[in-house]
């Protein structure tokens, strides 16, 4: 009997371990060598050693020359079709081709997918982008043909929003869309979308082969009183340029009504806010 007890106690004290606490899906950690050799068989592209911004002919769709040109197409589509309820983003570049056009510039041909962010639908587009070269810097010229994507119907939402604002006696205003935590109040989202579309006019104008623009944030927006059918907004928008990593401030006067779409009536690039960058008074 004593022996049994001693054996049991020995086993008990010999076992260490904690009760399992939570169960979560484990990341599969397998021997990677087999997987790498499989991957190598799938690698069909030959990575060029020298990446030349002046690459001509067939482009790697994931690399920056095609990506930058495709982003310009996104901006262009938004200027034509965007609204407070319709905003397009570049989803993927499938293929790209570039060629020099005499001495005047460079032309890109692209097959891309574009996503409408609110309805979360995507579709394919074929596009041509022409960047001019030389002393006179024109904004890029774009031609695009898309599938059904551009025919997304948002009339109901747009009319409802328009009527709501027209009837409202007070004027809307907001700041920091999104806020520091990436949050936007649902009521403010149409104003944020409208800013994206309005920014697209600027980003389209400012784009070159050496830039990649996105709207970073709406610093503030104020609705202005109007007597016309248009709704009018004054925006201070922060654009992000990827290559320089700069934040560029633009003041925009924007009008919108469902039949006429988004228009940028005035635009002004603001200087860098050095005051904003000094240490705050209280740490």
């Amino acid at each position, binding site marked *: 009997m004593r022996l049994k007890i001693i054996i049991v106690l020995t086993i008990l004290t010999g076992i260490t371990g904690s009760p399992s606490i939570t169960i979560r899906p484990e990341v599969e950690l397998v021997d990677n060598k087999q997987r790498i050799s499989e*991957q190598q068989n799938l690698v069909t592209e030959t990575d060029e050693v020298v990446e*030349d911004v002046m690459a001509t002919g067939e482009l790697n769709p994931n690399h920056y020359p095609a990506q930058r040109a495709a982003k310009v197409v996104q901006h262009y589509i938004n200027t034509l079709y965007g609204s407070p309820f319709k905003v397009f983003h570049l989803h993927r570049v499938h293929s790209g081709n570039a060629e020099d056009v005499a001495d005047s510039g460079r032309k890109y041909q692209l097959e891309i997918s574009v996503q409408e962010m609110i309805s979360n639908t995507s579709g394919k587009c074929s596009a041509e982008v022409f960047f001019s070269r030389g002393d006179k810097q024109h904004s890029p010229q774009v031609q695009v043909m898309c599938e059904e994507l551009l025919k997304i119907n948002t009339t109901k939402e747009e009319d409802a929003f328009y009527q709501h604002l027209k009837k409202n006696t007070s004027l809307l205003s907001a700041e920091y869309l999104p806020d520091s935590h990436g949050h936007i109040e649902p009521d403010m989202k149409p104003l944020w979308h409208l800013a994206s579309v309005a920014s697209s006019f600027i980003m389209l104008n400012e784009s070159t082969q050496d830039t990649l623009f996105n709207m970073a944030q709406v610093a503030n927006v104020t609705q202005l009183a109007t007597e016309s059918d248009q709704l009018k907004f004054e925006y201070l928008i922060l654009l992000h340029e990827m290559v320089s990593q700069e934040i560029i401030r633009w003041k925009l006067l924007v009008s919108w009504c469902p039949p006429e779409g988004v228009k940028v009536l005035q635009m002004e690039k603001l200087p860098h806010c050095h005051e*904003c960058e000094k240490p705050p008074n209280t740490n």
Partner: protein
Amino acid sequence: MDSSSILTANLLQYFSVFLSFFCFFNHSLVEGAESTWNYDYTKYHRMDEIRQWMEDVEQMNPHLVSSSVYGQTYEGRNITLLKLALDNPQGREKKVIWVDCGIHAREWIAPAFCQWFVKEIVQSYKTNKKLEQILQNVDILVTPVVNVDGYMFTWANDSTRLWRKSRSTPPPGSSCYGVDLNRNFNANWEVRCVGCVSFDSCSNTYCGKSAGSEPEAKAVRSGMVDKVLCFLTIHSAGQLILLPYGHPQITAPNYEELVSVGKAAAAEMKKIHGMDYTVERLHRSNSGSSRDWARLIGIPFSYTFELRDKGEFGHLLPEDQIQPACEEAYAGALSIITYGHGQGFLQQHRPNSAVVTATGFSSGLVVLVAMWIMSVTTGLFV
């Protein structure tokens, strides 16, 4: 019944009672500790919260986690890493994996990821044999925030949120603060390129007065020990896995391997939530980056991770995307770490099987056995 039998019976009774209570309380204490310490990994945290979290993680996991201050920022704040490591059962020399986050102040998802990364390892290493083996062979050094000054500045108010650089004071003749720390490392630092690396102190890619001049970059250099297998530096945004070198005419000797390993990581990341991460050598010349510096000093697997997203929110990634972004990044990071570990330790080792581990051992069973012992020992008196 003799007195020695009575004594033995008493001792056994006390011991069994003690054992059952110990297991019971140990279980609930651990559970209690977890439930009372509700650190929310799906929110962005201020620097003081992150510091407190680092202390708590170390305190609660003393066998796995230790901290180390390896430098000071420009404004004199500590730069701290967490070392995740287990003893090597054979007493072999260990190698190192380096993960750093928050070189760029506004890229908040990066420090969030470093915290998530530590949490995942802490919570899974006891039940994941492979991970345990890795931790026995390598020390994983994680710095949640390198650019502490810059990160704190982005929390000062709404208008400072998009700050990128460090907070060094303006050089003579300038009124502009800060150096782009990821252009300050000694890797082709002198190379200029259009719009990427700038000698203008007001620029967001200002590379500093000389290569490695900034205290934060110096700290990373000093924190770098020998035998580093992998160097992962975490940024946002763009959904990219970047390889060395950001200079078109210089290629890493293991370039093909870097591409393969990167693509394997991207494939793992895509499995989690379907997001595409593109593997590439930087799509522009980018001298002075920590990734390039790491490769130049001989660390074989050096990558920059650019996490979500692709421009919709950019650096202002909503908090409801923290979890999915971190889950996929974890899969990618672990993929590279596992490969690096495999390369660094060509012989496969099994954990010392002499140590019996019974994970998932229920304390209830102990109580039952203890009760049985008690009934048996009580029987001795009858």
